[in-house]
Structure formats: C-alpha cells, structure tokens
C-alpha cells in the first residue's frame, strides 16, 4: 500500500466521475495548448519569413494583401508594377537591395515565383540535389513541392495560370526541373523558383511573338540582360532592404505619394494582423479558462461530496495511526492527481489536434505547423494544474484534517 495506490483506488472507485473531471479539464487545457502552439508557431513563421525584408513594394491595393501575397504567398497579388519604375526605385539611395518577384502561375496549386538567387539567399536556402536554375524555364523546387508532386530533377511540366488548380494551362512552354531544395522551414519549401524572364516567356501570346530584347546598354538593374527601358515589362513586387534607418521614415512615404506603387511594411502589417487575430484568440482563451474554472469547480464538488461518504474511512485511518496531516495530504494529493491527469491529457490532446491539422490540411497551404515542439508556456500549464489541484482540494483537505474521530466512530 502506498499513497499513490490509495489515491488511485479512490479515483477508480468512481470511474465515471473521475473520467468526467479529467475530460472536462483536459478540454480546457487542450484549447489553451492549441492556442499556444498556433500562436507561437505562427509568430515564428512570420518572423522567419519576413526576416531581411524591410518593405514590400507592389501595385496599389490592400497593404495587408501585399504582405500576405508577396511574403507568405497566401493571398493574391494586388496587380503589377512597371519594371521601369521598379528599377528606378531599386537605384534609390536609401535602398540597400531589392529583389524582384513575378507571381501569377502555379503548378498543382504550388506557386511559381519568378525572381533571382537573392530571394533564395534571403532564407539561406541550400540545394538538396541538382543545381540552381540558370537558364530560362528552369526551376528549382522546394522540398514540399517535390514530395507532394513527385517531381524529380529532369522532369518537365506545364504551369497553369492563376494560383489555384483550375487555372488554364500554359501548354506551349514547359518548365524543366534542375534542382530540389533542402527543407528550410520557410515559404521556400512550398515554392517553385525560376527567373522572371521565364514567367514572361510563358505568358507571351504565341500569335504576337515579341522576343525579349537583350539590351546590353540599358540593362535593367533588377533583371540583368533585360532592357531597363522597355516600358511593357511588368513584375509583381519588389522586396526591399533599407540602407539605413532613415529610410524607415522617408521611403514608404516617398513610394506611396510620389509613385504609382504602394509600399507596405511587413513588421507593421503583421502586427496589425495579430491585433485582429488577437481578439479572436482572446475570446477563445476566455472560453478555455472558463472550461478550466468549471472543471476545477467540479473537482472541488466531487472531493467535497466524497468526504461525506468517506468520513468513516478517514476516522478509521486515524484510528490506524494516520495523523491529521496525513489525511490532509491524502486529499490534496488526490485533487492534484486529478488536475495533473487532466492537464497531461489536455496537453496530449492539444498536440494531437495540431498533428491532425498539420496532416489534413492541403499540402500547398502547409505552412509547416508541427505538433512535436514544446513551449515554456506548457510548463506554466503544468504548474497551473498543480495550483488548481491544490486550491480545489484545500477546503476538503482542511475538513479531512479536522475529522473528529470520536464523534464519527461513536456516532449513531
């Protein structure tokens, strides 16, 4: 006989009530765990994906959409900007570097991004096999793309217009895969990278052939080997890194007022997004805490009621040599055991839900959520479980401590 065995037997004596209490608490805990996992991972993703990008410049529209589309690749482009204008901006004295992005096509709903090598460098991408794209229509694909589409090096495919599966196919031009990237935990895992010219080539109407001129005199700064004065060329956006802090104040205002383009700051827009999400998360949190409170109340009532049935047990235990302190401990441990079981089941349930979510969600939207990380907040949940267990068993434990053995055992 041990304290643990004794408590276990008492819990086992009322299986339904014990299960209900554990289940109720675990429900609240799992919601809290879920929020912690999603919130943390979302923030990590946002920070890691927006790293090194101070400003996104694109066509006028919603700034949030601009960020979502060009950094996280989840929303649609706001439109196009002229390469000439983008080039001019890239030469601005406050711009340290500018990366062009040309979006609009996809393969199996994975996005094809026309850009240059700097874009891959932004996320410290490394090749798993093959080579980086070098010629037109060559692509290097992210690890999730390769896994989900079974594309291998040397395979060719036709892209489809738009960012969904049912866009019309560009049958005339075929891409060829030259390399596959290592997992980076960033958006690159879900992208197919090529050069900007390939995107243009695919979109050229076959009936109006308009060769992309090689202009060595007026080379575009962003896309070398392309004429920088061709006013028909367009790209989707520019990812800009500032030269100095001065740019934070002046550059966005300059772009928004002096050009036809729009500048959006990832830091500012994601903060705004989090404020919007925050309200929903707070409501969910409130619900979770309510669940925890109700389950604590339920555990308290269960312990309190069981004391009436157990008053002879307690008195007998005293007659067998148990001190009042021992009885106090016994009830406290029972309460803590219940809440700790609830917390553990809740944590497992929370992680399991993320696992389900990560597996069921469409691969192209797979933003890399994982159920196998643990955050320090979860330690706080465990400690919280201890505190809740102690609090809801305190009053019953005090009553057990005060058991009047003589009265109970002589009682008629």
């Amino acid at each position, binding site marked *: 006989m041990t304290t643990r065995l004794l408590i276990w037997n008492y819990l086992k004596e009322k299986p339904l009530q014990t299960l209900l209490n554990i289940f109720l608490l675990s429900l609240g805990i799992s919601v809290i765990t879920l929020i912690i996992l999603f919130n943390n991972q979302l923030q990590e993703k946002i920070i890691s994906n927006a790293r090194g990008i101070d400003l996104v410049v694109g066509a006028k529209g919603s700034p949030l959409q601009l960020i979502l589309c060009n950094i996280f690749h989840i929303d649609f482009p706001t439109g196009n900007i002229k390469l000439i204008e983008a080039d001019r901006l890239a030469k601005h004295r406050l711009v340290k570097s500018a990366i062009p992005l040309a979006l609009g096509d996809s393969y199996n709903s994975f996005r094809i991004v026309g850009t240059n090598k700097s874009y891959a460098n932004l996320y410290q991408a490394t090749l798993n096999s093959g080579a980086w794209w070098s010629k037109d229509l060559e692509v290097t694909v992210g690890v999730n793309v390769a896994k989900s589409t079974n594309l291998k090096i040397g395979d060719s495919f036709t892209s489809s217009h738009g960012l969904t599966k049912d866009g019309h196919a560009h049958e005339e031009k075929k891409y060829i895969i030259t390399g596959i990237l290592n997992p980076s935990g960033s958006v690159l895992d879900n992208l197919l990278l090529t050069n900007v010219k390939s995107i243009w080539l695919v979109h050229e109407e076959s009936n109006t052939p308009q060769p992309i001129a090689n202009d060595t005199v007026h080379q575009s700064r962003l896309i070398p080997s392309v004429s920088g004065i061709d006013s028909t060329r367009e790209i989707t956006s520019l990812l800009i890194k500032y030269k100095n802090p001065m740019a934070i104040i002046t550059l966005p205002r300059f772009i928004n007022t002096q050009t036809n383009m729009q500048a959006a700051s990832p830091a500012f827009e994601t903060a705004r997004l989090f404020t919007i999400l925050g309200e929903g998360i707070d409501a969910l949190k409130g619900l979770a805490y309510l669940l925890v409170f109700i389950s604590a109340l339920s555990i308290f009532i269960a312990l309190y009621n069981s004391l009436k049935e157990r008053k002879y047990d307690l008195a007998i235990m005293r007659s067998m*040599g148990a001190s009042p302190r021992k009885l106090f401990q016994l009830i406290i441990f029972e309460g803590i055991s219940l809440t700790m079981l609830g917390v553990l089941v809740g944590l497992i349930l929370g992680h399991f839900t993320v696992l389900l979510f990560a597996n069921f969600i469409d691969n192209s939207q797979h933003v890399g959520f994982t159920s196998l990380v643990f955050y320090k907040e979860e330690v706080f949940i465990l400690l919280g479980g201890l505190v809740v267990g102690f609090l809801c068993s305190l009053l019953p434990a005090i009553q057990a401590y005060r058991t009047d053995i003589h009265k109970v055992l002589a009682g008629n």
Partner: protein
Amino acid sequence: MLKIANLSYTYQSKAQNSVPIRFPDFQLADREHCLLLGNSGSGKTTFLHVIGGLLRAEQGWLELNEVQLNQLSQSALDHYRGKHIGFVFQKNHLIKALTVKDNLLLSPFLSGEKQNEERVEEVLTDLGLESKMNARVTELSQGQAQRVAIARAIINKPTLILADEPTSALDDLNCKRAIDLLFSVAAKNNSTLLVATHDQRLKDVFKRKIQL
C-alpha cells in the same frame, strides 16, 4: 500492562452543565481479557476512545506498556495507537475502494510499520478468509466483513485490542462465534482484549468485568 487512575473527560459543549465523566480506576495484566459493562449512554465508548487515544483525557493517569499516553504529542500518540492498539467497532467500517488485502495493508502503511504480505496471508488464513484475499470488500458477506475487520485490528500484532460492541448486532450463534474468534486471535497475537458492551451474553465469558 494497562494502568488507569483518576481519569476523567469533559465534553466541550456550549451547554453550561458540562460535567466531567469520571472513569473507574483499574489495572490489567498482560492477556487479562476484560469486559467493560454499562448501559447505553454510560460512557463506555468515550472510555474506550480515551484509552485508545482517540480522545484526550485532560487529567488522570493513563499508562499502556509503561508509556503515559496522555503525555504524548498528537503525532506520537497517533503513531503509538497505530502500532500498539487495534480497534474493532460495531460496524466494520472497511474501506470500500480497496480489496481485502489492501484494507489490511493500510494498517501497517498508516502506522509506519513494515508491510508484510505474508503476515496478511497468515492472518487471513487464521480467520478462514484466505480465498477472499483479492476480493472487493463489497463482495463479502456480513460475517466475512466482520472477520476482515478483526483481521485488520490485529495485523500489527497490537498489545491491546479495544472492541466496541462487537456482538450486540449479532444473533446468539454469531455472537458466540465472534467472541470465540476475538479470544483466539488475542491468544495467538499475545494481545489483551478489552471489550465494551451492554451485551449481557458476554458476561459469563470474561473473568474480569468492570461495571460503569
């Protein structure tokens, strides 16, 4: 082994006339089984609880095996009681959440003694309950339950067994069986038996009798 002199107990009550209950002086030698007779309300249970340390006498002499019980601290008294005194109550008060074996093991566990499964087997065999070792308490018959309660009282080989009305709810046959059983376990474990009852059927069984 048991010496009692000038012992009294006062109930703490709001009523103004809380008269102290004065208990008779007596001494018991080792294995000198004794009957404590008295009508209902004469204070038998209170006396038994004072002797067993469940209640504290505010004055008088209470000595068990050369230890003065009312001088011990609360935790020392609890420990001493668990180790040296076994209780048998009118009702069994077995713990329903536990099996027969665990009910017995609870006694050494709570008194801080070594938990010996062989001892459990030995005691249950003596009482003819070896087949019920792993049974739940709720599966036992009334008589079996009482035998388990007696087994629990003697598992720690107490020097003193205090029994409060162990037979008053039983018919003549079972009354005889129960008291025989108490005598035999007391003999086997070298315990002294002190039985408080108003049950006149036990009068002739005991040599030593104290009237309250």
